[in-house]
């Protein structure tokens, strides 16, 4: 009705009104595309990724500049391998990042999902659009999961590049003693990145749930990060070993099996199952909370 008169006046004023350039697909998927665009257009996201990428680079530089050869058994695992094969920079970088840096960045993004929108007030406009509460929750979770992948890849990629720059890189000697080609070792690096990404999915679901509880994103972020530290502390107490298999952080560092020939997927499977369980439980909690929540911010 009103549309026609307006479009006429507009087309008169600006005839080149962008003919569907990179138009998002519309429908429900448009929100997912938008979510990922907004996430990766944010300076904060890039700051987090750069901070993560700096970890393996710092390791590589430190090892390179240090006069003494790293001794096996001191420092993070695989550190002594770095000088022989630069690809181990990526592995060492991941191991160093897993306990704190990765959960920290994932906590920031996952804790921000709903609470960040609520804090800005944009949540009410998304829901009035209407985005649909369940779909918004799903989109937000997918966004956090994609960030987990991006975060892990940032560490691995920066590690591989730093390894190529500072150390000799060649066929990789695995933990089982076998040697694999350079191209296959890149695949292994990606596989490890996948393992670590999956490891972080449970934490992301917890962050999403915390995020539905508050309109203060910092609160949800802090709670998520604190919980990841608490889980690792509990995991280190032998008195609580009955609890250990249920902690989302239990398999976080168990990707060494992926550096054997043939690859042992046992821990990968156990980890995926555990993370899936966390996703189900905290996804359901987030759903229960968010679908009935009064949006008053």
């Amino acid at each position, binding site marked *: 009705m009103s549309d026609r008169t307006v479009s006429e006046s507009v087309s008169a004023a600006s005839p080149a*009104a*962008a003919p569907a350039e990179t138009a998002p697909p*519309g*429908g429900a998927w448009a*929100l997912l595309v938008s979510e990922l665009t*907004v996430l990766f257009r944010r300076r904060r996201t890039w700051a987090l990724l750069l901070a993560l990428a700096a970890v393996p680079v710092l390791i590589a530089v430190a090892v390179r500049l240090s006069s003494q050869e790293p001794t096996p058994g001191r420092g993070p695992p695989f550190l002594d391998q770095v000088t022989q094969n630069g690809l181990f920079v990526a592995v060492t970088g991941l191991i160093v990042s897993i306990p704190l840096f990765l959960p920290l960045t994932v906590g920031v993004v996952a804790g921000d999902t709903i609470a960040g929108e609520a804090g800005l007030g944009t949540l009410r*406009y998304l829901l009035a659009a209407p985005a649909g509460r369940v779909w918004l929750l799903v989109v937000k979770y997918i966004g956090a999961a994609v960030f987990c992948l991006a975060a892990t890849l940032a560490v691995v990629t920066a590690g591989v590049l730093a390894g190529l720059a500072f150390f000799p890189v060649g066929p990789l000697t695995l933990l089982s003693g076998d040697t694999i080609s350079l191209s296959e070792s890149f695949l292994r690096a990606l596989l490890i990145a996948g393992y670590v990404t999956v490891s972080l999915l449970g934490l992301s679901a917890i962050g999403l749930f915390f995020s539905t509880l508050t309109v203060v994103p910092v609160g949800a972020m802090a709670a998520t990060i604190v919980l990841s530290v608490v889980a690792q502390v509990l995991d280190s107490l032998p008195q609580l070993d009955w609890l250990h298999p249920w902690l989302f952080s239990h398999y976080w560092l168990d990707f060494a099996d992926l550096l054997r020939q043939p690859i042992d997927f046992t821990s990968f499977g156990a980890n995926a199952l555990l993370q899936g369980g966390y996703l189900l439980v905290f996804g359901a909690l987030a759903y229960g909370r968010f679908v009935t929540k009064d949006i008053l911010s």
Partner: protein
Amino acid sequence: MTPATRAGDLAIETRALTKRFGRQIAVDAIDLAVPMGSVFGFLGPNGSGKTTSIRVMLGLAAATSGEVSLLGESMPGRLARVLPQVGALVEGPAFYPFLSGAANLRRFDSADRAAPGRSRRTRVDRALERVGLSNAAGKKVSAYSLGMKQRLGIANALLMPRRLLVLDEPTNGLDPQGTREVRALVRSLAGEGTTVFVSSHLLAEVEHMCTHAAIMSAGRLVAQGTLDELRAGESRVRVRTPDAAAAIRVLADAGLVAELETAPDDRGAESFTAAEGSPGVDGSSGWSSGRSADHWVSAPIELPRSGRVAPVERGTSSAGGQLAEEDLVAALVAGGVRVRGFHLQDTSLEDRFVALTGEGFDVVR
């Protein structure tokens, strides 16, 4: 003003809508009826429950009890069907400060499944143009002024052709020019057949824009109807005379319940002077010394649109029927009352508002 929508259709209807937060009742059993095609002013002081009502209507918050239907569909059950036809500005605009104005609108538009992605950029540009933000489209919202954000918020409500617009305080933070533009925009939208529901605590705004209004106070809906119906409440006839007792008697004979005003307010005196058209009367003539002291005697009357005067039913009404103002004056003079001033005081929307919601700055709860 009324477009060709089926008469009697309601764009917004609430039945005994109630919203409680713990023990506090924010919205108390309100029955709103917003006709299709109207420009409906939703008035009330700060904290009277306007925004909460709007949140419940849009399905952002759940009603404690009662029902809401928007455009004939029940909410929140048919939310996914209804909301694409509703543009909303709720409790001020809110945006991603790190995105540009246009990117913000694209973001919100992508959340609407009914909005075609193909025309997104065009529609965003069009909405920005409509609120005069084309030049600032690429600027980050963090660099926007309050008024620009307000405009962007209105643009967000106009991304798709809407049947209903819900605008919560749309002129907040706008300069006088911006306010006029918003009024013009609302008028043009209404002219196209969109029902516009505007909440405001600014009476002038509502009087300028709206065909209908409702007044909220402390969570209750205290009045609603067309503007004329709302204004046509109690008016007062006021007589300035030294013969107060006689005047009261004559007015009582005419069926009016008159009383002596102890402290005549300044407004009445001013309008008296203006009506007389002779400012010299209360100037140097010195009626405080030479003449006997004046009193104001006033009586509530009903002012129907015919311009005739009918006494308010207060049990004592005996004369009945309708009187003209001139008849009252004639009766007063015939009764030996020295009429020094006669004034018919219409109820403005403001009087009505203050009468219904109370005076002063105190938030009711």
